[in-house]
């Protein structure tokens, strides 16, 4: 009897040890299959990046930083090599450039770039842990052009997921999708990134209109196209299919290229506003708006203060509310905004995205709150600052998000086509945006001393004796597409042969 008791005690102790040590140990999850979407109910894809109980970063990420995690594949293995800015299989430059190396577009003609055309980046979207001068960057800071009056963007930490959704999206290069109203939380320090549920680059709903399409089923044979008398040195164009009109050719051209654009198009010269301006048919779409989520001040019609930050609202300005609490606009107010008969009050909340969402939710009045696709014209959040930066100077900024007709060359990532809104207009357009001049990841463009953006000063002090501060760090190429001021020359002056846009 005693032996049985003793045996029982031994067994119980061993069991106790086993239970204790089992509880101590933490089982791992693991993953198989691709990590970027198409998850099923039986997926094991989560374990590629997440750990339920042993994560070391917010959002249960098991990596200490995203850059090293993402570049485990996107550093040369898979086709989109964002470390070196080249398409893995062919070496062609990536649309977004690269974070550490990139093709110097001023030296690139076509095909596989020669070794001399590839160099170190001279500027980049400095994500966390990107090695800069051998030192991992913090990724923290505030984006340029983010501090308009009212709601500012950042500071925050820039990560790969600031712009890309690793779980997949409907967009090109899995850029983040827009969400419906009320999901954007400005300056939320707990969020992993700046850009949350904002606008996006997207495919065409009814190609060829704006945006981009990956539908290549109707790509025609390659025939050099001529638009406006200027040969189009791109590899996909049609002159034989549609009768040869430049606009039609441009439209077909769009259809065969995977590109993303600002979502800008021209509408009629009559109603609602006779200005030859543009409007975004769906404000939740468009690459310019995507960039302007952080770089708010740069989404502008033209360089004058107090103008709207976008041609989306040609003459009318957004009537802000005195508080940040969503309120109600009367139908008369909304109409007046559209017709431009109300001069805005440039209150801090006039830049509030929340307020903006409220307004568009009420436009037209028949549209309910939360509807993401109200009618146009849309009011994009933000206005040119009355006073910006040191000395409260009104800034003049290069217009984006606008049409550009009769261009000397095809614009990179331009929205091309015809007015899709009907209204009887067949106005052709070429609209450019942020990505016409800038890379998203990094650029190897040269920034020689004459083109430095830093150290700017004026000879004559402004009234009051205030010097204008530097716009950016010295030697920074500002993610520009071409070296020095090549982006200016390509539009504002013809110099030599027309450069070839990127192939991808």
């Amino acid at each position: 009897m005693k032996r049985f008791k003793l045996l029982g005690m031994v067994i119980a102790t061993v069991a106790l040890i086993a239970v204790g040590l089992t509880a101590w140990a933490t089982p791992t999850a693991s993953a198989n299959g691709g990590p970027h979407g198409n998850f099923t109910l039986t997926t094991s894809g989560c374990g590629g990046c997440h750990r339920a109980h042993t994560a070391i970063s917010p959002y249960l990420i098991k990596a200490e930083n995203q850059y090293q995690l993402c570049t485990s594949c996107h550093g040369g293995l898979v086709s989109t090599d964002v470390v070196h800015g080249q398409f893995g299989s062919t070496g062609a430059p990536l649309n977004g450039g690269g974070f550490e190396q990139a093709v110097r577009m001023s030296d690139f003609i076509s095909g596989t770039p020669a070794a001399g055309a590839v160099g170190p980046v001279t500027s980049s979207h400095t994500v966390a842990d990107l090695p800069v001068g051998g030192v991992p960057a913090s990724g923290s800071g505030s984006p340029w052009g983010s501090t308009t009056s009212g709601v500012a963007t950042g500071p925050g930490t820039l990560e790969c997921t600031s712009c890309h959704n690793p779980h997949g999206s409907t967009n090109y290069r899995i850029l983040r999708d827009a969400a419906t109203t009320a999901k954007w939380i400005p300056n939320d320090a707990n969020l992993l990134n700046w850009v949350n549920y904002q606008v996006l680059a997207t495919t065409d709903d009814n190609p060829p209109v704006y945006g981009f399409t990956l539908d290549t089923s109707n790509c025609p044979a390659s025939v050099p196209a001529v638009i406006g008398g200027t040969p189009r040195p791109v590899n996909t164009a049609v002159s034989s299919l549609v009768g040869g009109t430049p606009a039609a050719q441009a439209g077909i051209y769009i259809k065969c290229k995977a590109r993303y654009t600002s979502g800008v198009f021209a509408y009629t010269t009559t109603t609602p506003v006779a200005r030859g301006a543009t409007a975004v048919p769906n404000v939740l779409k468009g690459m310019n708006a995507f960039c302007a989520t952080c770089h708010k001040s740069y989404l502008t019609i033209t360089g004058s203060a107090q103008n709207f930050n976008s041609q989306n609202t040609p003459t009318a300005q957004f009537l802000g509310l005195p508080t940040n609490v969503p309120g109600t606009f009367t139908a008369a107010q909304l109409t007046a905004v559209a017709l431009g008969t109300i001069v805005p009050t440039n209150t801090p909340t006039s830049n509030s995205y929340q307020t903006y969402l409220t307004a568009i939710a009420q436009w037209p009045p028949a549209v309910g709150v939360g509807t993401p696709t109200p009618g146009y014209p849309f009011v994009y959040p933000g206005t040119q600052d009355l006073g910006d930066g040191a000395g409260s100077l009104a800034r003049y900024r290069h217009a984006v998000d606008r049409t550009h007709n009769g261009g000397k060359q095809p614009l990179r990532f331009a929205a091309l086509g015809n007015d899709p809104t009907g209204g009887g207009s067949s106005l052709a357009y070429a609209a450019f945006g942020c990505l016409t001049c800038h890379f998203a990841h990094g650029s190897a463009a040269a920034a020689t001393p004459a083109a430095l953006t830093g150290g700017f000063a004026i000879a004559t002090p402004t009234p009051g004796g205030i010097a204008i501060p530097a716009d950016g760090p010295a030697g920074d190429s500002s993610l520009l597409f071409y070296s020095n001021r090549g982006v200016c020359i390509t539009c504002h002056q013809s110099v030599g042969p027309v450069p070839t846009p990127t192939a991808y």
Partner: protein
Amino acid sequence: MTYLEQQPPYPDRDRRRRLALLGALFALFLAALGVFTLLIRQGAPRAGLPDVLGASSKGKPTFERTLAAAGRPWGVAVSPDGKRLYVSEGAGAYAVKVFDNKGSSIADATPPNTNEYGRLPMGLAVAPSGLVYVADRKLRQVDVYDADGAFKDVLRPAGVDDWAPTGIAVDSSGLIYVSEAYELPVADGQPGIERHRIYELQPDGAIVRTFGEKGGTESTLMYPNQLAVDGKDRVWVADTAGVKVFQQDGTFLFRLRGEGDDGVTLPGGVAYGDGKIFVTDVTNHRVLVFDASADAPKFVTQFGDLGFGKGQFRYPAGIAVSGSRIYIANRENGRIDTWTQ
């Protein structure tokens, strides 16, 4: 006198014995807990049941030392005599660094007329002849060097205009296996190309066979990377969807389990030695060891953990085995670590 009325002759002694036994058992429990705690602090894998409970601890490698430094090393290979170590860099000079077995640098092997912006060496392997084969992702070619890193030639598959090699293995007969992930988007009205496959090449580039295709199933490939050939001439291919194993004729055999403690999340490198397959699990920062002597592999053990210290990895990539020594490209720690088994 009934049983119940019977009294033990020495009641105090029995009570002391029981207490002593209880105390001994409790001490045993505390000792076991302490041992396990020590194992955890030494960097033993946190995952899974510990070895003390019977999971196999046989052949569990131990950390030896950091042999050499390299810029974000991707691939690693060892010469047949064990005297040369070759490491492909993913940063800095983007060269193939040649070290001796003590970790001293001998040479930086680079293809002629290139600079650090024009080359990207990735997978590499050493043939029984001593020649070193290096897949260059940017140049889209396989460079061939001699044992001391002197450039010799370029290996191209016969009759193939363009390719995109990523990883390489050489079997004992000298047959060269090259993994490819070639993608050409639609352009000029031509259909796109998506070619993820394995080449078997003779040293002169003659194609013995190719197998594999891009896909999301167990038997297809998704960016095949580094690979190894085992003693049964099976080809173990690390790709972004796991480790896929094929017969030499290209017949798909199985995929290493991707779930559980012995599952591979993202395999970076794979190596064969001493009847075992070693796989670097990049995002779990560890190496898994499988017994490959039978038809079905059997998980043996795992080693390594996340960190900067000795015996720790940060995104381990390539792996090579020579005798009892395991060489691991500790990518984001910028070094080559050796372990012994």
